[in-house]
């Protein structure tokens, strides 16, 4: 029999192996398009983890989270593209992106501290829309964001001066760019996971949960609810900012279209469907909801061919239809999410 420690080590090793091999396996069996989907899935996991701090830990419903992603992405786009002729390196932009997005988080949080529940939801939603509308229109009188056309020809992510997109040769093998992006994203996502876990087990993490469960009681226990809530907004936002920067460098193009309300809702769905406040659940939710619509995209047409001999319904519609039905079904059968926090579940069970 193994003792617990060796078991944990083995588990970590297995997870590491799976993470390293995932793009290889996916790329070999389904093609590089799916590696790209995997890259996006990791970005979404980062977003979901960031939103999880605000919604899952602190219990503050945020419907405009994608705004921070937009801030990070546009910061990268402005500082590393021919638009302003600036070409800053990634290690300067990403921390700056986290900082600026965090500031925006405080900017959003400060006036809304007194709001509760659904009032907060609509204000965050409005904030998200305001950011998007500004991005869409700040091309006149001074051209800052280039308006609806977006910013193109952004420098691709580069490490030590080597753009990842071109791939790197190791021992005669060329590791393609998509794989390198994946490894970079996973490394940063792991960093975010680490920070989130440490936060969760810290004094601050407990203060967040206390506010989520009962704000008045938390206040009575001496928690500075104002600062702790602001910190939740700032932390969540800064993760979103980092993910946004990576997105801009990965796509090499940003436009306001990528940051609509639907994206915010998508990230919220990842958090809730995975299991609010439970880190493995949220990661699972992020991967699932990033990959599932793509699976539908690739199967919607062939499935109909097979069943009816022709394409009856517009595949794009069918894909979203199935996605909507999946959202409803998951919530009806697992209202606490697919992989909820066992501790939280115990508490809920005790209360009934």
């Amino acid at each position, binding site marked *: 029999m193994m003792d617990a420690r060796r078991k944990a080590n083995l588990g970590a090793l297995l997870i590491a192996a799976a993470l390293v091999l995932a793009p290889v396996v996916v790329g070999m069996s389904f093609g590089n398009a799916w590696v790209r989907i995997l890259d996006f899935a990791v970005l979404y996991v980062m977003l979901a983890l960031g939103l999880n701090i605000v919604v899952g830990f602190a219990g503050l419903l945020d419907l405009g989270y994608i705004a921070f992603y937009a801030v990070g992405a546009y910061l990268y786009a402005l500082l590393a593209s021919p638009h302003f002729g600036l070409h800053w390196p990634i290690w300067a932009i990403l921390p700056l992106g986290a900082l600026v997005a965090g500031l925006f988080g405080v900017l959003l949080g400060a006036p809304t501290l007194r709001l509760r529940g659904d*009032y907060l939801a609509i204000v965050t939603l409005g904030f998200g829309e305001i950011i998007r509308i500004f991005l869409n229109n700040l091309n006149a009188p001074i051209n800052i964001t280039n308006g609806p056309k977006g910013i193109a020809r952004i420098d691709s992510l580069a490490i030590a001066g080597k753009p990842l997109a071109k791939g790197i040769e190791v021992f005669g093998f060329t590791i393609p760019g998509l794989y390198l992006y994946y490894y970079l994203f996973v490394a940063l996502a792991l960093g975010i996971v680490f920070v989130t876990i440490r936060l969760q087990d810290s004094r601050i993490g407990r203060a967040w949960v206390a506010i989520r469960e009962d704000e008045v009681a938390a206040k009575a226990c001496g928690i500075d609810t104002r600062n702790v809530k602001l910190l939740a907004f700032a932390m969540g936002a800064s993760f979103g900012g980092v993910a946004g920067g990576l997105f801009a460098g990965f796509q090499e193009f940003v436009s306001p279209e990528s940051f609509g309300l639907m994206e915010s809702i998508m990230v919220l769905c990842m958090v809730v*469907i995975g299991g609010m406040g439970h880190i493995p659940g949220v990661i699972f939710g992020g991967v699932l909801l990033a990959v599932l619509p793509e699976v539908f995209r690739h199967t919607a047409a062939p499935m109909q061919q097979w069943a009816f001999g022709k394409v009856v319904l517009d595949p794009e519609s069918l894909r979203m239809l199935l996605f909507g039905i999946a959202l409803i079904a998951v919530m009806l059968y697992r209202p606490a999410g697919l992989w909820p926090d066992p501790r939280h579940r115990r508490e809920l069970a005790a209360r009934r």
Partner: protein
Amino acid sequence: MPFFFSSSLAPQAAPSGGGVYHRAVDILLQQIFNGLTLGSIYALVALGYTMVYGIMGLINFAHGEVVMVGALSAVAVMKPLADSGLPGPVILLIALLVAVVVCMCLGFSIERIAYRPLRGAPRLAPLITAIGVSIVLQQLAMLAWGRNYHAVPTLLPAGSHEVFGAQVTELQVIILVVAAVTMAGLMLLVNRTRLGRAMRATAENPAIAGLMGVDVNRIIATTFVIGSALAALAGVLVSANYGIAHYHMGFMLGLKAFTAAVLGGIGNLPGAMLGGVLLGLIEALGAGYIGDLTGGFLGSHYQDVFAFFVLIVVLVFRPSGLMGEKVSERA
């Protein structure tokens, strides 16, 4: 996302004549009137949000899509009937009736399928099913009616009158009157009838209402059905006003109406009406004057920013909306 409501709000040409001062007043009046028309439609939709919220504490995100289904099913009835020789108002009434019935059934099914099983579930679960329902409805509408914009047949005489220098179309007057009458009827229903009393009791406390002999399930279903009927009416009015209907029209309209409901104080019926009308006015005036206010720096594309900005400012100073009751901290 097509910005369905932006272009139509551009200031209409003011009648010429009179001094600069008079023209400015005319444009102001025009904007106020356009804002009132738009606002009364917002108010009808906002009532649906606020009724459901008041009774269940749930943001019914799918409500905007119900409006869209109402509008498109009305257009589907109008199109074949338009050439039948029936008088325009009769066709319009038939279409309205069909839309209301379709939406009532829809509202009933939505509540039964997506919300009722989740009572007592974690707070965000019904929010996600609402989003799911909204996506499903939108896609079904797209499959049924396609991606195209549908022109709404002109069924009413398109006359307009000059009122204090502002051009007021007959359609706008009809919209205002219909909205006002409907809202007055709703207030009577809620405040004066047995059903209304049961609704208010359920909103206050479902468990106690149940003990007092109120069939809570039936009341909640009825609330959904009434809200959906209002949505259908709003859908018909808004598509008649702009002359088009589209499978994507519900999203932005729903968002605005929800904003209006929150602005007025969600859960409060007069609040929703006030919020709707205010939002309509803010948008129309904001779109018309934002350029002048900021010295041309911000144009009328910032109309939506204006609405949300006002919302945020109002909520900062009155965290439960303009007419919302002060909820105790432990509510």
